[in-house]
């Protein structure tokens, strides 16, 4: 069902153009092959191992499993906490989105990069930071005797911490480009400030808010590390349960059923998301963001700015700050003791000095970024032309890895990629491949809006002048696209740096990545190991922050994409 919408500067479909569709299929071949081989095939295999027993599909297991009260409890808690987290994130982050969109203030770029850091940090680091903040002996405990660990509040707060940037970037990105004069016109015609906002700005924003909310819901619905570290044993989400049933109990049938349930839920979320995104792409009158932002005026606006700053400091800078503080709080007072210790290999947790994890992480991230940009770029190019149903489905398909449990993919790799020519189980390439799976959706989401905003008529003009599609793309699209490409690459890079779930299953011990090294250090007794974990986390944070800051330099409002 196609929504009625205003067509402005959108590439028109050239219906019946066989050439276009052939080219599109050619572009799609690689991403499709990639996803079939490294995602669909492993996941199907592991699900089949659980449900396809002695040559018979046993779908009866589904009702058995879903009939168990504790499984139903897990389903209920998963949904409930995701709804609550999403609501809370919107509540806290929407004022932030407004401030970032409409106000100019010193340090805005740095701050925008900083609020994005949590989004790419590995959960194991975030969990540790929050424990140091709201756990026993944490900052809140010392100040007010407040302790929130092993409560739902800890989970919700950490989810807000993670997803604050999603809302600020998705909603704020659009908000900054809405023409303020439209609202002013409504005011001139006698509407109250509230009414003008409600009738002019809100309808324009609502698809972006919906899309952001759905993304936050997706991330929190499939939350794993946060719930495991902060929730304590009493709380279990679907993802945690799948991990437990697969890795600990080897109860593959139950795990398979839960995987299917999660698949269905994620599929539904993505379908709705795709629909809202399409609505959002219906053209709005957008202006250059710099025209819309100005210095705050009047007490009300300054108060709002102050409020948002306070939120950012409390919610984002504080947990990150606690990690940094603990990394320097060495055995002999403040200093670099833990950082020095990272260079020696006698810590026992590793065969190599932990510092080497930084090099490994960077190498993996570079390869993963190359793969993700290649696959995601081709996919985005294929999806740019107004697409038929088939391709739309493909769009959502690319997002699926965000919602499928890492343990499912990891165990799927183990039983499918085990024969030559594809015995990748002990190959280094497996790590970047798994990380690229998670990176591709970000690349597509960043590139697609930009590619779609390129005026199709230019391309047509080039074609009329005899340029091949490839040449037209190179001459017309590429100059406009390269910035988006850089941003996409930066995001993929940051995401692979922080990727933990899949990597922990497949990274080889002699080549640990930063997050894996942190987790391993935390898993051992002794002051030095704990301190080194904090130091490595701090290094990871700085690397992420620097790459995101570089992105801010490249980013222009026109190439903001969805992130």
């Amino acid at each position: 069902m196609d929504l009625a919408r205003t067509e402005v500067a959108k590439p028109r479909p050239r219906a019946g153009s066989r050439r276009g569709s052939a080219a599109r299929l050619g572009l799609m071949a690689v991403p499709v092959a990639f996803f079939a081989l490294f995602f669909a095939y492993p996941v199907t295999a592991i699900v089949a191992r659980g449900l396809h027993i002695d040559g018979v599909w046993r779908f009866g297991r589904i009702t058995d499993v879903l009939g168990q009260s504790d499984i139903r409890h897990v389903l209920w808690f998963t949904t409930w906490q995701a709804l609550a987290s999403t609501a809370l994130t919107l509540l806290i982050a929407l004022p932030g989105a407004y401030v970032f969109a409409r106000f100019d203030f010193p340090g805005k770029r740095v701050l925008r990069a900083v609020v994005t850091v949590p989004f790419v940090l590995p959960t194991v680091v975030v969990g540790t930071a929050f424990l140091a903040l709201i756990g026993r002996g944490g900052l809140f405990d010392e100040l007010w005797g407040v302790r929130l660990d092993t409560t739902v509040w800890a989970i919700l707060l950490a989810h807000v911490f993670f997803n604050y940037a999603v809302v600020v970037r998705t909603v704020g990105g659009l908000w900054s480009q809405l023409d303020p004069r439209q609202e002013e016109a409504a005011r001139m015609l006698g509407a109250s400030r509230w009414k003008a906002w409600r009738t002019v700005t809100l309808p324009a924003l609502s698809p972006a808010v919906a899309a952001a909310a759905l993304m936050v819901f997706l991330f929190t619905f499939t939350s794993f590390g946060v719930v495991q570290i902060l929730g304590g044993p009493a709380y279990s989400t679907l993802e945690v349960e799948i991990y437990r049933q697969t890795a600990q109990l080897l109860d593959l049938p139950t795990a398979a059923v839960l995987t299917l349930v999660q698949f269905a839920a994620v599929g539904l979320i993505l379908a709705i998301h795709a629909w809202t995104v399409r609505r959002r792409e219906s053209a709005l009158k957008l202006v250059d963001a710099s025209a819309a932002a100005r210095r705050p005026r009047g007490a009300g606006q300054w108060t709002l700015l102050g409020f948002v700053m306070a939120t950012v400091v409390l919610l984002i800078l504080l947990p990150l700050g606690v990690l940094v503080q603990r990394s320097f709080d060495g055995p002999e007072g403040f200093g670099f003791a833990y950082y020095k210790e990272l260079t020696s290999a006698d810590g026992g947790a590793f065969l190599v000095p932990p510092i080497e994890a930084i090099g490994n992480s960077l190498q993996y991230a570079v390869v993963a970024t190359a793969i993700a940009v290649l696959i995601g770029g081709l996919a985005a190019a294929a999806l740019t032309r107004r697409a038929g149903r088939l391709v739309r489905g493909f769009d959502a398909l690319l997002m699926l890895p965000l919602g499928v449990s890492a343990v499912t993919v990891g165990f799927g790799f183990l039983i499918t990629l085990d024969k030559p020519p594809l015995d990748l189980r002990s190959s280094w390439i497996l790590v970047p491949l798994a990380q690229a799976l998670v990176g591709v959706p970000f690349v597509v989401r960043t590139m697609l809006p930009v590619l779609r905003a390129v005026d199709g008529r230019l391309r047509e003009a080039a074609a009329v002048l005899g340029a091949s599609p490839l040449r037209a793309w190179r001459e017309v699209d590429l100059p406009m696209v390269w910035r988006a490409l850089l941003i996409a690459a930066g995001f993929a890079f940051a995401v692979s740096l922080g990727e933990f779930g899949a990597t922990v299953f497949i990274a080889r011990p002699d080549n640990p990545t930063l997050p894996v090294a942190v987790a391993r250090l935390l898993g051992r007794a002794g002051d030095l190991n704990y301190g080194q974990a904090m130091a490595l986390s701090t290094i990871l944070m700085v690397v992420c922050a620097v790459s995101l800051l570089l992105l801010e330099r490249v980013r222009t409002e026109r190439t903001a994409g969805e992130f």
Partner: protein
Amino acid sequence: MSTTKSGSTKKVAFTAVAVGIGLVAVSACGSSDGGSGKADSKSVTLVSHDSFNVSKDVLKDFEKRSGYKVKVLKDGDAGAAVNKAILSKDNPQGDVFFGVDNTLLSRAVDNGLFQSYRVKGAEKIKPEFLADGDRSRVTPVDSGDICVNYDKKYFADKKLAPPKSFEDLTKPAYKDLLVTENASTSSPGLGFLLGTAAKYGDDGWESYWKKLKANGVKVVDGWEQAYNEEFSGSAGGKKAKGDRPLVVSYASSPPVEVLYGKPQPKQAPTGVATGTCFRQVEYAGLLSNAGNEKGGKALLDFLASQEFQEDMPLNMFVNPVREGATLPKLFTEHGVTVDKPETMDPKKIADNREPWIKSWTSLVLK
């Protein structure tokens, strides 16, 4: 015009396919440096869990003597590593698996993970650790005890004797002092539960846990959080201002506190309640369908050898199982010997593990 059109379409498709082939080629190249050692009988692969460690020179020594290059593949925590090995047993990732403990032994052996091999020097292994009788599909490699650790300073300050036994833990004097791990997600947590089941029997352990719960036991998900966040005696816990002076950990934790303390303390800051212990034994075995059986056998002999057994304690903080293997000074000075740990037959553990964990969960966590 039409020729250019179809020509350019072909070009796009061709480029796409070429890129695809390139990708697969890259992945294929990646695969040549790994694999299960089938193609190459000069290397032998050990699959294990994350905690496996050996001194470089000791491993080099074995490589020199045997002529095999050893690859070590650490495959996640103990439970996950065993389960992965079971899943991939038809086409294993290596030749030898080390690190299946007595709580998982039955699952591994019944699933046909291992083939029989009696190691050289099997007669030197202390008989109480042997399992699997004459078929010897597994070889014991190390043992360790899961015990309650106490914070020496806390009990000294309070002028209170630290607890010694399971029974002590339920006494009012120790109310709200103990933190343990979730039995369904953590191996020390499970070990502690099995210890109480061994001590109080199939019918008695539940009422013991009711008492423990009434006495304010706290349960957290993993050892890491229990030991480094909640426990007041460890370095990490001191930092996090942990306020539970009793924690379920290992008998070897006090020596570790000494080793990694900066500056190294003269005395271990923590002690062990020796009447609360459950014995964990870790086994290794030759994987069925191993690519390099001969090398695998040599590697197993090495794991049971005096050299490896004496190197092990400081690398993995476990005790040797071989007669005559001497302990390092750190262990003799700061460790404890647990004379009568609780034990349980692996078969019994396999049969009861799930129902016990289920009832424990609803009893303690709900």
